[in-house]
């Protein structure tokens, strides 16, 4: 401590006139400005999108119209796509949490020679192109793929079973892509947890089940929550997996928004969908975070 004081005195001596506050502010502004410019550009983009969404047509002469919002909410195909998007996000998130928790537990709580190798294998998918991973799933689930080859060889089925083109094939692909994020979030929280608290509870006669429910779960819920937010956002915003593993039969908003914009050339309609997707996702995350905060307080 005293060394620090001495050093501060030295600094003060070296700068007889203490730096004015404005110079500090200028420095901070200068450091932040390039990143801020990008961030503000993104924010402005959303304003532009909001503007386009209430135009009758775009590009074209300015004319206010809410018809594109009305069109969205009265179109049953688009409404179904919206609900399907939320369902896909929720199901993927829940499966990732349930599958990922024990893995995170294994990585953090059980010292093992293999833990580090397991850690690398869990993270590997993150470093492999999403296009490659999705092709891998089509090889597994396709009509000429691994599962159908195995089923035919075993004589269980005569004709290939269509395994793709379903909600669940998309879920499989999404879970595969996003599970590492969930494991990382949960293990980050578990590794900061006070192991003595668990030890104490067990010594004082709590059953492992009670200790888990009363101590470990409430303490690790934030990791699950962080992971859930990441997984949910990445799921509802992803385009390739629903396209390739759904084969046209799982239209989610990421797909319909592109159809609207590129195939139909309907920018206002696309802007409406994109805004609803963004606001809906952020709103659901907000509600979810509030619920988690309440749960953690109890």
């Amino acid at each position, binding site marked *: 401590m005293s060394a620090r004081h001495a050093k501060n005195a030295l600094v003060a001596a070296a700068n007889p006139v203490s730096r004015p506050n404005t110079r500090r502010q200028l420095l901070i502004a200068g450091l932040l400005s390039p990143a801020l410019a990008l961030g503000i550009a*993104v924010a402005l983009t959303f304003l532009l999108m909001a503007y386009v969404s209430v135009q009758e047509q775009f590009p074209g002469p300015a004319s206010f119209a809410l018809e594109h919002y009305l069109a969205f909410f009265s179109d049953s195909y688009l409404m179904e796509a919206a609900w399907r998007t939320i369902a896909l996000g929720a199901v993927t998130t829940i499966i990732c949490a349930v599958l990922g928790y024990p893995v995170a537990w294994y990585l953090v709580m059980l010292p093992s020679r293999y833990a580090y190798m397991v850690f690398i294998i869990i993270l590997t998918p993150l470093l492999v192109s999403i296009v490659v991973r999705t092709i891998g799933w089509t090889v597994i689930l396709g009509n000429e793929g691994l599962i159908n080859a195995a089923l035919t060889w075993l004589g269980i089925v005569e004709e290939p079973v269509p395994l793709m083109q379903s909600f669940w094939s998309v879920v499989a692909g999404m879970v595969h892509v996003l599970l590492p994020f969930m494991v990382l979030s949960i293990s980050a929280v578990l590794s900061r947890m006070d192991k003595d608290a668990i030890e104490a509870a067990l010594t004082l006669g709590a059953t492992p089940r009670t200790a888990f429910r009363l101590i470990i779960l409430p303490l690790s819920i934030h990791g699950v929550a962080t992971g859930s937010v990441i997984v949910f956002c990445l799921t509802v*915003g992803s385009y390739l997996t629903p396209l390739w593993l759904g084969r046209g039969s799982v239209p989610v908003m*990421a797909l319909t928004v592109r159809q609207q914009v590129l195939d139909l050339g309907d920018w206002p309609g696309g802007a409406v969908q994109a805004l609803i997707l963004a606001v809906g996702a952020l709103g659901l995350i907000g509600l979810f975070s509030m619920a988690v905060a309440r749960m953690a307080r109890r």
Partner: protein
Amino acid sequence: MNSSGNGRMILNTYVVAVMVFLLLPIVIIVPLAFSSDASMAFPPSGFSLKWFEAALSRPEFLDAFYLSTRLAVVTTAISLSIGGLAAYALVRFRFRGRALCEALFLSPLIIPTVVIAIALTMILGQMGLLRNFWGLVIAHTIMTLPYAVRVLAASLSEIDRDVEEAALVLGATPARMLFHVLLPLLRPGILAASIFALIISFDEFTVTLFVAGPGYYTLPIEIFNYVEFYSDPTIAAISTLLVALSCVAIAIIERIVGIRNVFK
């Protein structure tokens, strides 16, 4: 005691199952790359290297690989410079609006990707930067910046501020302090952030699909286009090459900084 041993065994088996689930879709592609069949049927009926030859002699793939590499390098340089400055401000100073700035920099992580893609298509279209190298650089910089800021901020917060001040007190100019003290200390963080940014840019799919166009297809988009029309094992061959590239990246990260430190 016995029951906990059983529990341990169940957990071990479970973890192995999850690893198989994670690795299978990646590993499954490799045997198909060496297939002699004309389709990606499983199991392959014979061995051949012709699909590697097909992949490597397709000029579209080579051009796309070149574009992806150039884009990833330029994006990484810009993203790390911008992100490094911002991380320094966030870590070393307390100021009003700091939390807001941080939220703004990290926001591309929680806005659904396809929404960013649509938004960027709109604004880059207005600026005449669609189907343009610099438009792609802007898009990729936005997507990589959150990671650059996070990794660099984490790395910077572990370096004692006193080291910087000591150098300044001892008469180093700020530039000399930066290049001879701060940057060398930050090297592991800079390396980790670079690898992150390179991989994210190289693999970026959704946003690129919207803002790229003929003449400006990155490798993931070129592969996507190919798969939309053909289903021969050329795709398995090029995927195998990409997986090999990822393995090299993993080995480099592991050797230099340790995978665990990158994902902290």
